[in-house]
């Protein structure tokens, strides 16, 4: 059988050292994706370094009023954490919309960020896939792609990132803490994942052996509202057709701070920077939201069966921003 070595080191340094010496090894978090991929023959690591029980299981306030989330914190724990629910509702809502209770109980923050696309061709070793085997081709462009990317795709790959949590983190300007043999570094969440270009096999900008140890959220904007919404084929346990996470702060009827991120449109959580820039200082109205989001989505290049994602994402974002603006105007922070 395809055997692999399993290690459960007690600290991050040991974990990093173990993987540094194993070019085809992998870190194991909750295993909800990697173990499936191993069963399917898509992933075949010869070493699994289990990092799910490293001491990265805390959710703590930072000195500046932000939040530091250990990479081993379970999705279900994070979703119901009082500080997350109170200050970052977009994150709690995104987590709760993902997967199923059982999967959320197992999945870790670090693992969630590194899960792989659910493109059916990627998951089937009997078919070509440039992400799984570079150079073999991308049947999704002509085949089953209703769920796949409309933004930032390339001729080589139209996969989407399946994470809900990452969309919220993108909207929250989260920073990812990474450990490696070369010392720690900090990566903005929006720079963690990469678009396929001509190297679709590389999902992220991490180098082999780098270990996510925490995710840090900046302090919440005073008076800002946030929310997450996901459209899907069934009411639970389904990946997004499109999703949106947004943070909005309105002052005297004008947009003072806005973050919008889309899920299921691209190989990474899609920060709508064009829309954000267009909205800054503009009236917080449905008309300006609609203009800005249309501007953002003008870059979309849909395939035969996924063009619906463009109006879907637009309507979700506009409706959400309108609701957040109304809540800002009407309610207590």
């Amino acid at each position, binding site marked *: *059988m395809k055997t692999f070595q399993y290690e459960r080191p007690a600290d991050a340094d040991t974990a990093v050292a173990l993987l540094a010496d194993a070019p085809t090894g992998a870190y194991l978090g909750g295993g909800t994706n990697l173990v499936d991929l191993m069963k399917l023959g898509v992933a075949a690591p010869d070493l699994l370094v289990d990092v799910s029980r490293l001491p990265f299981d805390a959710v703590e306030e930072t000195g500046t009023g932000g939040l530091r989330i250990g990479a081993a914190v379970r999705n279900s724990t994070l979703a119901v954490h009082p500080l997350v629910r109170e200050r970052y509702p977009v994150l709690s809502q995104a987590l709760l919309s993902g997967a199923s209770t059982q999967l959320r109980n197992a999945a870790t923050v670090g693992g969630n960020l590194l899960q792989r696309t659910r493109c*059916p061709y990627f998951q089937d070793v009997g078919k070509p896939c440039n992400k799984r085997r570079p150079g073999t081709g991308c049947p999704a462009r002509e085949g089953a792609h209703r769920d796949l990317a409309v933004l930032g795709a390339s001729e080589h790959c139209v996969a989407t990132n399946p994470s809900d949590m990452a969309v919220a983190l993108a909207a929250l300007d989260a920073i990812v803490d990474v450990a490696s043999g070369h010392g720690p570094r900090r990566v903005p969440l929006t720079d963690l994942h990469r678009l396929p270009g001509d190297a679709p096999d590389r999902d992220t900008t991490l180098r082999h052996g780098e270990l996510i140890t925490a995710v840090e959220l900046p302090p919440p904007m005073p008076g800002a509202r946030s929310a997450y919404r996901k459209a899907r084929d*069934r009411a639970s*346990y*389904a990946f997004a057709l499109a999703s949106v996470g947004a943070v909005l702060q309105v002052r005297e009827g004008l947009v003072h701070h806005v973050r919008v991120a889309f899920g299921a449109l691209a190989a990474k959580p899609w920060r709508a920077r064009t829309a954000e820039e267009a909205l800054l200082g503009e009236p917080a109205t449905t008309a300006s939201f609609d203009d800005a989001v249309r501007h953002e989505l003008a870059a979309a290049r849909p395939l035969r069966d996924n063009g619906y994602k463009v109006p*879907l994402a637009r309507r979700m974002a506009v*409706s959400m921003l309108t609701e957040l603006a109304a809540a800002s105007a009407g309610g207590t922070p």
Partner: protein
Amino acid sequence: MTTLPRVTGEAVARIEARDKVTGAASYAADHPLDGLTHAWPVTATVARGDITAVDDSEALRDPAVLAVLTHANAPRLADAGDPMVAVLRSPHVAHHGQIVALAVAETLEAARAAAGAVRVTYDEQPHDVVLTADRPGLYTPDEVNAGHPADRRRGDFDAAYAASEITVDAVYEVTPLHNHPMEPHAATAVWDGDALTVFDSNQGSTVVRSTLAALFEVDEADVRVVSEHVGGGFGSKGTPRPHVALAALAAKAVGRPVRLALPRNRIAAVTGHRAPTIQRVRLGADADGHIDALAHETVTQTSTLTEFVEQASVSSRMMYASPHSLTTHRVARLDVPSPSWMRAPGECPGMFALESAMDELASACGLDPVELRIRNEPPVEPDSGRPFSSRHLVDCLREGARRFGWHDRDPRPAVGRDGPLLIGSGVAASTYPVWVFPSHAEAYAGSDGRYEVRVNATDIGTGARTVLTQIAADALGVPLDLVRVSIGRGDLPAGSVAGGSSGTASWGWPVHKACTDLRQRVSDAGGHVPDGGLFVRADTEQEAGGGTEYSRHAFGAQFAEVQVDTVTGEVRVRRMLGVFAAGHILNPRTARSQFIGGMTMGLGMALTEGSFLDPEFGDFTERDLASYHVAACADVPEIDVHWIDEDDPHLNPMGSKGIGEIGIVGAAAALANAVHHATGMRVRRLPIHPDTILLGL
């Protein structure tokens, strides 16, 4: 004997409920055997071609791997007349996903790794997998599933339709659907000389036994098939499927017990699916909604291995008064996996089309859709002129309308609103034929006052074991706990398949007969069972084997309320109600589960389920339960079920009609009609996904 209160009609809990919830119930892959080995399939990566080489050298390098069986080296199976089980016999590949080799190893993991290491080379040939209504190669089959004629004509449809004041002409499409029972297709097989024992997951082990005997050319008496508990089938285990032939073949080849549980992602290609249908329905009526002309024309597909024709037009032959009628089926043989039975084959997709068209006709006539159906109630079965043994569709519609509050609604489409949600309701009729097949049973009375009844029934989760015990206890006139019913073994008196909603009638009848006879014998013996007991055997070859002068069907009415999100296009169900008339209900508890289960599966068909046949590969895209969207709990609202008790003397001694399938029939149409009421959009292609709604709003 004193007279006991009857237990049929009582809500008796499943006899094996505790075993199931505690894990004590053993399914096909649960039987530990000494020396057990494990198998994993290798499946074709081309849709059509011939195997030119199999390289198993890497797979066999692991000493834990016992064999890689292929058409070239496997013991050759005899022809049992069923292409589904003709495994590893030929180098020809007829569809993507066909099992072309089987790895057998000491552990599951080793078998899986070995299967992944087998390299198969093909001489690939161009494939043809796309069904359209006007494609070349469509032909008229000799008959369609369940033995119905492909075409029926009454009167002069064309003339009557042309002369009709109001017409509806629409095409409805149902995507391929998969049964996906929770328990995968699994078997554990062991040989002892020429004697074969198989623990198998199926809907009828009598046929599994005879098929295995034919495949391996051994006596049926030497084949033991055990299927005591089965975790669902929905038709996909109705006849033997490849797993059982493969497990037995592998066990013979390696000389050890072999367990094969088909991996979920291989089930879609080799265990059957509901074939896609393209159905054109034309209705011609007068301004009052009386149908004069009805045409229902189905185009569907089958595989090159077998001809299975989904009989989608058949229910239009008996539902409504229609003096001029045309019902047809055309089928194309494509390089696709073989279709097969899925819960209410024919009626389920066919009634989606007909009952959607009825809703369109009601709109066109400006009539209430409940009233339209009542106006077209036929006095006798239109197709045959036979009287109905009982038909209470109108009562179901009226009772359902009352309970649902149907007549309180504003009938205009797209006016119901709740913030960003559009609200609408819909109705559809349900029907399912009464099937009954000959079966055999034995009953013993012990001198200790206990009874044992033996019949090869299969409980696929329906509650069959329980209801048969109720039938036996009543016929014997003894309390339930004195009766033990043995089912689920091929060596028991032959029972028919758990399919066609026929089980309770088919197995219950000989059980009733044997137990009634045994009760008389006990009475004749002065009420005392002698030492050695009393034994009775019964069958229904005569009673159930012949035809009937009646048209026998169960009927129902389904009502649904949906909400449609105008932002996302998501359709969610707010409530459903089903009212059914299906003879006497023998166990309200298990019956309710059957009705609700069928309606839930219909909800999935309407809104979430669908398999995409990839034209490039000829393969289904959705092959696991993350991508094939069976409705989740969050999709299913409270479903309300009621029934109208029917006293129908033309059925069987219990007076029952089957209830396993009728719940799915009409559910999708009720939901699609509700979507129309909510939005004004007529969606004629299932499933109704958010994109369909969004692009139409």
